[in-house]
């Protein structure tokens, strides 16, 4: 037995349309994010196993608010120009050491500064 339903051919109400659109809008507003991610390489190396002479490798020690570059204290703003000077005088790489109180954010800040000098190879000293 087939039941014939009487179709109501009235126009769909605009209010329910708006309801659905608002729901969609709310969903996308709450569920979507705008943050974008980048990536930066990280690898640790044994401090002794460089194989290059020490004059070619600069040492960089990261502290909480400054960097000691070849025994000379440098503020972050001067680091790139200091590294450029070193590159001009024959340095090919940096060995990065960390003080104990350094956060990951700080490490990445300095790493992205060092990356601005593309001629330098970066090595990170393995933790003690």
């Amino acid at each position, binding site marked *: 037995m087939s039941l014939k339903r009487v179709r109501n051919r009235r126009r769909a109400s*605009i209010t329910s*349309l*708006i309801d659905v*659109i*608002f729901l*969609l*809008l709310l969903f*996308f*507003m709450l*569920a*979507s*994010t*705008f*943050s*974008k*991610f*980048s*990536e*930066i*390489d*990280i*690898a*640790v190396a044994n401090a002794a196993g460089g194989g290059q002479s020490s004059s070619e490798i600069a040492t960089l020690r*990261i502290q909480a608010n400054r960097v000691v570059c070849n025994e000379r204290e440098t503020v972050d703003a001067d680091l790139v120009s200091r590294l450029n000077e070193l590159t001009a005088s024959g340095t090919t790489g940096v060995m990065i050491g*960390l003080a*104990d*109180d*350094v*956060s*990951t*954010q*700080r*490490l*990445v*800040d300095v790493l*992205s500064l060092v*990356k*601005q000098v593309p001629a330098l190879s970066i090595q*990170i000293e*393995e*933790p003690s």
Partner: protein
Amino acid sequence: MKRSFKASKREPIISLINIVFLILIFFMVAGSLSADRPSGIEFIQAEGLECCTEEDALDILSDGTLVMQGKTLASLEQFIAEIESLDSTIRLRPDRNYPAQDLLKRVKALQGAGAKHIVILTEQA
């Protein structure tokens, strides 16, 4: 004057829908739906790095807890056991306040287990 006011009686609701549609399309196009992120993680902020990469990674919270795809892992060994291969890039997303020495210890452990290429993910500032 009076006549034009009368004619536009139904217009406000149409323009409302138009604007809501525009906002909807904006959020659909500009935003991206993300996998659930562990609560309380503050991503590392960095500028000037090459944009953009997928965000599937091993999260490391500031207290050292490992979280992968919303699931807390007991140890790094469990992570190594769960991933298919150490030859592909290992992606870490540590909290910005996580001590860097601890991060390096974990990187060292991953390298010791045979990982070739390890990257850390940073959020575009």
